[in-house]
């Protein structure tokens, strides 16, 4: 019985972490699948959004939900400007140039944030309603983790519906599967990409704010979690929303369970598993075969 509760609490904690990982990474997955653009600066947008959300709550006294909305809109707008002015010049450039450009961008953002806001961690002030424990009947668990799981599920269902049931979603799917064919059918890929890029960065901003409670929020954020975001995209298969979801949840739960039972070496296992998995399926679990 005690063991069962232990398992349940670990799975819940892992699910919450996985949801945050999914919300941050899903935008990277779609832009990667759509344009093949290697955007290592994606985590920087998550960090920017996190800062906007946390600082809006602390300095302007904005509530949690409106702060999340502000973070989403501000980050989406900023990223759209970056995309039009800078990213767009490098779509047909070699991969190396994309890597250099986005690493440079990460450095610039890290340095700017360090100067403007400071190198210390910015704590997220949760509203009272989300603090404390929630009785689920079979187990008492942290309200905020349950909240994250619910939000994550709502978002994945929303994204799935948007992806599968709307015209826009159909255009994105078409472009991921065969860009040239989609372009010949008159789909405006550039516009599609700007919109998805901005939307994906906005989602990352939400993830940055929602996850600030346990991922922290300091200027090193984009580099610290870069490997995790990339693992989610590669394991799920670039451009696959459901793939990214399963990959994020898998990694979240694994990370949580391993940290509990093998506090040393848990990450080692995740890296090794990722390498083995991609050896077996280089295109990811849900990716189209090459």
């Amino acid at each position: 019985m005690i063991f069962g509760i232990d398992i349940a609490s670990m799975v819940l904690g892992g699910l919450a972490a996985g949801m945050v990982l999914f919300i941050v990474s899903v935008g990277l997955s779609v832009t990667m699948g759509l344009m093949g653009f290697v955007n290592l600066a994606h985590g920087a947008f998550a960090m920017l959004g996190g800062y906007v959300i946390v600082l809006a709550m602390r300095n302007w006294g904005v509530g949690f939900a409106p702060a999340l909305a502000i973070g989403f809109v501000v980050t989406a707008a900023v990223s759209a400007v970056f995309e039009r002015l800078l990213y767009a010049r490098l779509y047909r450039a070699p991969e190396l140039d994309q890597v250099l450009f986005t690493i440079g961008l990460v450095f610039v953002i890290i340095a700017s944030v360090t100067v403007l806001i400071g190198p210390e961690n910015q704590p997220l002030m949760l509203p009272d309603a989300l603090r404390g424990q929630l009785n689920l009947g079979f187990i008492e668990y942290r309200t905020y983790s349950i909240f994250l799981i619910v939000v994550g599920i709502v978002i994945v269902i929303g994204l799935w519906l948007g992806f599968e049931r709307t015209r826009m979603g159909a255009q994105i799917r078409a472009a991921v599967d065969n860009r040239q064919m989609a372009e010949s059918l008159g789909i405006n890929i550039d516009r599609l990409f700007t919109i998805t890029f901005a939307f994906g960065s906005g989602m990352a901003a939400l993830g940055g704010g929602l996850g600030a409670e346990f991922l922290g929020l300091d200027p090193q954020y984009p580099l610290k979690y870069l490997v995790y975001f990339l693992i989610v995209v590669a394991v799920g298969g670039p451009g696959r929303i459901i793939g990214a979801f399963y990959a994020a949840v898998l990694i979240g739960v694994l990370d949580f369970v391993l940290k509990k039972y093998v506090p040393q070496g848990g990450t080692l296992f995740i890296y090794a598993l990722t390498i083995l998995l991609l050896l077996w399926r280089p295109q990811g679990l849900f990716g189209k075969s090459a």
Partner: protein
Amino acid sequence: MSVFPTATDHPAARALAGRHRLRLWEPLPWLLALAFYVAFPTYLGFGTDLLVTILFAISLDLVLGYAGIVTLGHAAFFGAGAYTVGMLAFHGIWAEPITSLIAAAAVAALVGLLSGLVLLRTTGLTLLMLTLCTMALLEEAANLAHDWTGGFDGLPSIAIPPLFGLFEFNPLYPNTQYLYALGVLFICFVFVRVLVYSPFGQSLTGIRENTLRMHAVGAPVRMRLIVCYTISAAIAGIAGGLWAQANAYVNLSTLGLDRAATVLIILVLGGYGRLYGAFVGAVAYMVLSHLLAKIYPTAWQLGLGLLLVIIALFARGGILGVGETLLRWFGRRRPSP
């Protein structure tokens, strides 16, 4: 009498046949390195670090500049070499400098071969992520194997016996370290120079430029890439071993993302795929960082980021590429009377 010019007469053919010949200015870096030894005896520690960085950047140039494999995890091999030298010496198994370097090269080559077999099956983001993953895996492993590697603290004060039994490694007066590093760099550079102008090097460039066509003409693409990756890993391992011997310690920083990103920046700054880009980039970067990074660390990071963005957008050849363009520009203007 043939109407067509013979193949060797054609300007393009002549340029190709003469490509590998030694240029007049090529001894210059080595003369400068020797002059540095005489002129700045107090900066030899910095000089040794510079030489090791150049060697590391050359190893990256082989995979990135010639074979076109974009990697963010090259420090994995640097660290493998450094830890090989460090662990062999620290645990009193083997410490003789030159044979230790050979062991470092062998271990790094093995890591390169094994990881290359896996990750060179992929491309793009997945490849990039796997190189990062391999490096992170080694870093975690080095952190965990505390009894062997010293874990987070690393291995302090490794005793290295004198070179050839004659020249002491003195941490305060690194004369021996400097000349030793220069010698190793020279040997490795000559090897890489021969390699990139050989048919093997040509096929690497071919793979970088057009993989599909290289498949079509029957080149064993994956095999070539794996061999190149392994050789490059071995050279990076030598650089790591050299670093460990010169500094007389090893720590986790030899395996980190910082080191991998720095060497990438250095190579790109100098100009990749050009042999001498590693030299120019390392000198420019190390001198600037020596002067600026300690005083204004944040401004240094900001400047570095802007520099990378500018290089990626406007100056893909780095310093050497810009220099070449300027030379060509002036060359075109001057002769016109």
